[in-house]
């Protein structure tokens, strides 16, 4: 059973969002890391980049495949997880903690209304 922590919001593309004031931290879910398999590289947006909600903003690479990352929220990138460069396996080990991808200064906090609650995300993956 994939882990779906409470206190987070989720996207249909299997990202999680942790909102703290007007800054959101983004990563991929336990379901996503298990589906992808061993992560070998994550291409993150640059600090300062302007992201549009649901736009393709990077990739996550497993041994066999390259998958797009669609940002669940828009805004300016204010932080990225440098540690993933040399330890991409952190995404598999700890997708909600050490495996975080980037932080965004939310352009529009109401965008989070487009996201799924933990219960809705659990339903989504149960139906997959």
């Amino acid at each position, binding site marked *: 059973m994939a882990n779906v922590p409470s206190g987070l919001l989720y996207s249909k593309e299997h990202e999680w969002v942790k909102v703290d004031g007007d800054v959101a931290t983004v990563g991929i879910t336990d379901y996503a890391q298990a589906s992808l398999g061993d992560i*070998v590289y994550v291409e993150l947006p640059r600090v300062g980049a302007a992201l549009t909600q649901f736009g393709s903003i990077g990739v996550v690479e497993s*041994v066999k495949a390259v998958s797009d990352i669609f940002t669940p929220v828009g805004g300016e990138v204010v932080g990225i997880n440098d540690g993933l460069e*040399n330890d991409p396996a952190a995404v598999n080990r700890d997708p909600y903690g050490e495996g975080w991808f980037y932080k965004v200064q939310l352009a529009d906090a109401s965008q989070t209304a487009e996201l799924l609650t933990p219960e809705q995300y659990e339903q989504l993956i149960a139906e997959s």
Partner: protein
Amino acid sequence: MTTTDSGALRRTALNDAHLALGARMVPFGGFEMPVQYSSILKEHDAVRKRAGLFDLSHMGQFELRGPNVGEWAEALTINKVANMKPGQARYNVFTNEHGGAHDDVIFYRLGDERWLLVVNASNADKMWAHVSDKRSGDLQLTNMHGERALIAIQGPRSVEWLQPYVDADIGTLKYYACAEMRVRGTHDPIVIARTGYTGEDGFELFLPADEAVGVWDLLLAENRERGLEPCGLGARDVLRLEAGMPLYGHELTEEITPVQAGIGWAIKFDKPAFTGKDALLAQRDGNDYSRIVGLTMEGRVPARAGYPVFANGAQAGEIRSGSWGPTVEKNIATALVQPSAAAEGTKLEIEVRGARHAATVVPLPFYKRAKS
């Protein structure tokens, strides 16, 4: 083995076993095959450090019988065949008129007039049509594809973990030797060969399909807890790439010749004639051909098949295979490049999603196992 309706995937005799082990299944060569059971990197690690178990029953197996199999085969392939002794296996390539490859294969000589030919799963139908078309005289061909299974155990613990179930001494089988030995659970002796596609020590077992589950379960029953892992095609591809072994469709194709692929050691030009000989000789002597090289990426972005390769700002070729290489802890790749970009040490740039990333040409293989 069952053949499902035309168009649907075939299954090996071990299909239920894979599902029970939690394998993720994918289509390959017309069969439903396990790409991974737990994780590609864990399975890769098991093979390098202990041993892994592979179901390779999707590969084509042809039985060849007759007094002139060697001579017949030599006319169609790059390597010598007729001088193989019973108990020997040998790598070879069937060629087309231009010197390109129909398939890379292994011949196993079981007796004076009994041979096994193993071909790639993706080429099984093509190769059966080819050998059938070229059949002559008293040569008898039998297509056992799907009727026989192929289980491989690969890794440094292979001898230790297989020996208890075999009635003869497998430790004395030399690399690329084969023999017929009785394995617990098989009715008749089966072919065991000290061959493989991982760069590690190991054995390939060729057995009746209806005995495959018994042998597979037997090997896992005691050895799983010692660290024997079932391994899928995902790990197999990373292992063979690290070991510098060509994969048909990537480093060898109908267009990419054995000369270009860097396996000239297997071409015996002193044979009087063989398909594509003139073309390969001219290519070798002209020395003007694009060729397969190994390369490592400087950074963490993997190179993948199809990515363009640049030298001094101009496109010089393309990536043919690429992956993170866990044993060498670098991103590794093969590329088909112009001769001017092929020298060891050449600095290249690989275009990945519009950006260029540094790479260096290195000799193959990326990994060689320690001599024991």
